[in-house]
């Protein structure tokens, strides 16, 4: 194939999300992350002989919520099926899942497309299932140990249509998905803890081709950045294979983010026959129209609706509104202080500016913000009342963000209040003017830069605690 061919990437996503129910899907063990190995399990989630599953109704409720928030049709008559395969982390040697009648179908969410317009990513289905345990390899003893704590943690698998054409689209979809699921409270979606995991089905085809290429499935990406790298890496690999006249093999590949490359795990030929059949230990679940309506009414305002409201009612910019609504935690920070009476635009500026910058500098996610959200409001209030300068406020916020300090106390303890005594300000400036005769002369001969220098020196002498405008006015007055 000629090297001039331009290629189109086609992708579909399978996203596994751990539901935030208190107990597991088929027993009453806790779903809490972590814990010493094999302390969050019982005979049921470890599949001992003779035990039976009892369905946790909250799982159905959470899955229904997710489906409604993702614009899906809800299946009224649900069944569970068994997916059979052998692996040490799966103690029953089958996973209770849904194949034939998944709880949600035919949904979708809107994202921004590459061309700047809107694009709907279709959701083929969402099904409920149980998570497996974890294998821990011990290199010292060269043995593998099994931790069953995660066995039976409820999952939903959200299967998209093959609607993605770029890594950016995938990331935007995942961000939106994560925001929605966090907003409705069905999952904390922490990728680091594995409560949101995405597998990517990827193929490439010449631009303009109608036919899908052969796809690979990629697993083991644990951050959005890794996902973007994996997509770029895998699409390049496939294009190279095709351009060299080869064929892409249908297989499952494991992304190794350290090596920036993917490796084949198993090919289609070794693909397992899961021998699905209806789970005989669980009776079908019927979901009534009434339940669906109740669930729909119980949903909080979703990010998209919030975004629109922030623009139309609060006058935020499109950009600020859409950034704010990517996270339940940013929204909480914003809305909590909005309710306390602080102005929307000022709050948005702070969040879009300082909060985002500190998050990005520290490599943290909004859910990792540990400070009391009301502190941002208190800080803004102090600026509004001219108790501190904007610059001081930024410094104080860093301490709030990093150490959770109470800003009011911090300002007092560090003596950061704006100097409001104009006499004291004037005295300080006069000293600066006296000590910088050269700059004074330069200013008088028309060099504006010299004024900036003098302002800076004055602010420094006042340890930043004076209002810069006041300082400028007094300085100009002294200099005549």
């Amino acid at each position, binding site marked *: 194939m000629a090297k001039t061919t331009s290629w189109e990437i086609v992708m579909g996503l399978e996203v596994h999300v751990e539901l935030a129910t208190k107990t597991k899907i088929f027993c009453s063990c806790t779903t809490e992350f972590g814990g010493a190995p094999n302390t969050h399990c019982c005979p049921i989630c470890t599949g*001992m*002989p*003779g035990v039976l599953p*009892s369905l946790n109704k909250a799982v159905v409720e959470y899955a229904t919520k997710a489906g409604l928030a993702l614009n899906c049709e809800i299946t009224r008559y649900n069944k569970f099926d068994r997916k059979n395969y052998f692996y040490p982390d799966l103690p029953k*040697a089958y996973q209770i899942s849904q194949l034939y009648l998944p709880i949600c179908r035919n949904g979708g969410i809107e994202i921004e497309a590459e061309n700047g317009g809107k694009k709907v990513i279709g959701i083929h289905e969402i099904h409920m299932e149980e998570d497996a345990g974890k294998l821990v390899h011990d290199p010292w003893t060269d043995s593998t140990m*099994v931790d069953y704590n995660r066995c039976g943690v409820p999952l939903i698998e959200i299967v998209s249509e093959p609607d993605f054409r770029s890594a950016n689209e995938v990331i935007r979809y995942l961000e939106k998905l994560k925001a929605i699921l966090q907003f409705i409270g069905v999952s904390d979606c922490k990728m680091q803890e594995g409560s949101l995991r995405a597998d990517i089905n990827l193929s490439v085809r010449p631009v303009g081709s109608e036919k899908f290429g052969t796809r690979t499935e990629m697993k083991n990406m644990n951050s959005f950045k890794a996902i973007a790298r994996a997509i770029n890496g895998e699409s390049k690999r496939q294009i190279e294979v095709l351009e060299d006249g080869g064929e892409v093999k249908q297989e499952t590949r494991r992304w190794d983010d350290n090596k920036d490359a993917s490796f084949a795990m198993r090919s289609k030929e070794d693909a397992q026959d899961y021998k699905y*059949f209806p789970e005989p230990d669980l009776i079908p679940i019927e979901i009534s129209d009434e339940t669906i309506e109740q669930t729909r009414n119980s949903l909080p305002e979703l990010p998209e609706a919030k975004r629109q409201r922030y623009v139309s009612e609060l006058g935020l910019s499109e950009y600020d509104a859409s950034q704010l609504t990517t996270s339940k935690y940013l929204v909480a920070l914003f809305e909590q202080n909005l309710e306390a009476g602080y102005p929307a635009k000022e709050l948005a500026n702070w969040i879009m500016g300082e909060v985002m910058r500190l998050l990005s500098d520290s490599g943290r996610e909004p859910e990792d913000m540990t400070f009391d959200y009301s502190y941002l409001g208190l800080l803004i209030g102090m600026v509004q009342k001219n108790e501190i300068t904007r610059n001081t406020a930024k410094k104080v916020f860093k301490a709030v963000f990093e150490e959770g300090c109470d800003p009011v106390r911090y300002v007092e303890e560090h003596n950061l209040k704006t100097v409001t005594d104009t006499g004291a300000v004037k005295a300080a400036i006069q000293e600066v003017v006296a000590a910088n005769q050269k700059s004074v002369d330069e200013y008088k001969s028309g060099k504006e830069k010299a004024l900036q220098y003098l302002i800076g020196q004055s602010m420094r002498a006042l340890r930043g605690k004076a209002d810069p405008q006041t300082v400028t006015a007094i300085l100009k007055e002294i200099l005549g």
Partner: protein
Amino acid sequence: MNLETMTALELGAAIKNGEISAVEAAKFSLGQIDKYDKKFSCFVTVQDDVLQRAEEVQKKISSGEYTSPLAGVPMGIKDNMCQKGIQTSCGSRMLSNFKPTYSATAVEEIMKAGAVPLGKLNMDEFAMGSTSETSFFGATKNPWNVACVPGGSSGGSAAAVAAGECFYALGSDTGGSIRQPASFCGVTGIKPTYGSVSRFGLVAYASSLDQIGPIAHNAADCTAVLAEIMKQDKKDNTSVATKGADLAAVLNADVKGTKIGIPTDFFGEGLDKEVAAAIEAAAKQLESMGATVEKFDMPIVKYAIPAYYIIASAEASSNLSRYDGIKYGYRADDFEDLLDLYTKSRSEGFGMEVKRRIMLGCFVLSSGYYDAYYRKALQAKALIKEAFDKAFEKYDLILGPVAPTTALKIGENLSDPLKMYLGDIYTVMMNLAGLPAASVPCGFDSKGMPVGMHLIGNYFDETKILGAAHAYQQVTDWHKRKPTELVNM
């Protein structure tokens, strides 16, 4: 007082009245086990705390805590029901070292009624078989003739009751595993409606068909046991609320006006003439007691065996996958890697019949065959249910043979699985339909082996079935006869 001829309810009453203590009763049963079990091999495990338990039960009877008519009566539990701290082997090498940390709900319920469990009863490996010969612990022998099988898979349960080693037993029935051994051993057994007894703690063979039930000397005893264990259980999602079993109603029942249907298709090729004659005679007897008996056609019978073996094997292949040598149970000594560990442990841990059904089950569920086999079998299952629904519009009870023959010789069927499977022709339909059905002693063949009649009722009609059986047992004494081998000892 002759304990050897006493029923469970008679013994329960004697204990309640203080004529005998629970400890004395337990000592008697342990003596019976000592005397007979070497010959019949009914028990896989005899508990070492029987007398302690009996003492504790006696105290609670005396203090009025245990009021069940069965309190203090020694009994046995099929070895596929978990009992906390007691080896639960399922007759398999695979679980020969397995002691659960929990008890089956049915076991818990019967314990709450003051049962004194003697131990765990032998069975076909994982309840797969109709002869109790496939047990890792060796074959159980029929107390009527030790050269014969006791039937299966609850062969240990039926033989132990017949031999007087226990007063009643819990069995399980997936395709006839209570009824066929009851028939072969001349005792009474009932598989209740699917969902009426919790399956929690019953090691699964085929989850959609498995059901726990009693085997005892007569219908009244069976009713008393059912009354204790037919309870809805939130630990079993498929369990349902029922009206239970009503002992007073059973004891006062008659069959006047009871409409009994006999499917002509139950009397086709393969049915032993002497068995047919015993069933016909039982029908006449019931007629003479005031029932109306009518024959009707039920051609759906021919789908029963294939549908049953497809569904049961499919579910079994999945249910038994957990025995992989990783966490508990048998693990091969030497293995190269994970696959080798699985393969060797399962090859060595399971017997021939279990492996046959696992392979059959994997085949019918495999991609490309599911529609041809499993889906078709589910359709046949639905048709069988429909046929019974229709029959029960006309009849109160359905009568027929339990098995086409009386007990076969040991080894006779083991080499010919297809022949063995065909022996389940009359029993599997009730599991597919989920209906309650009992086996009630109704005669003997010319070799002196017992014949059981099959009484099938509509959903939750356990009381009606057992009432008719009790009425029949008031005027017949087949159930009271003592096994030949005991008489000869």
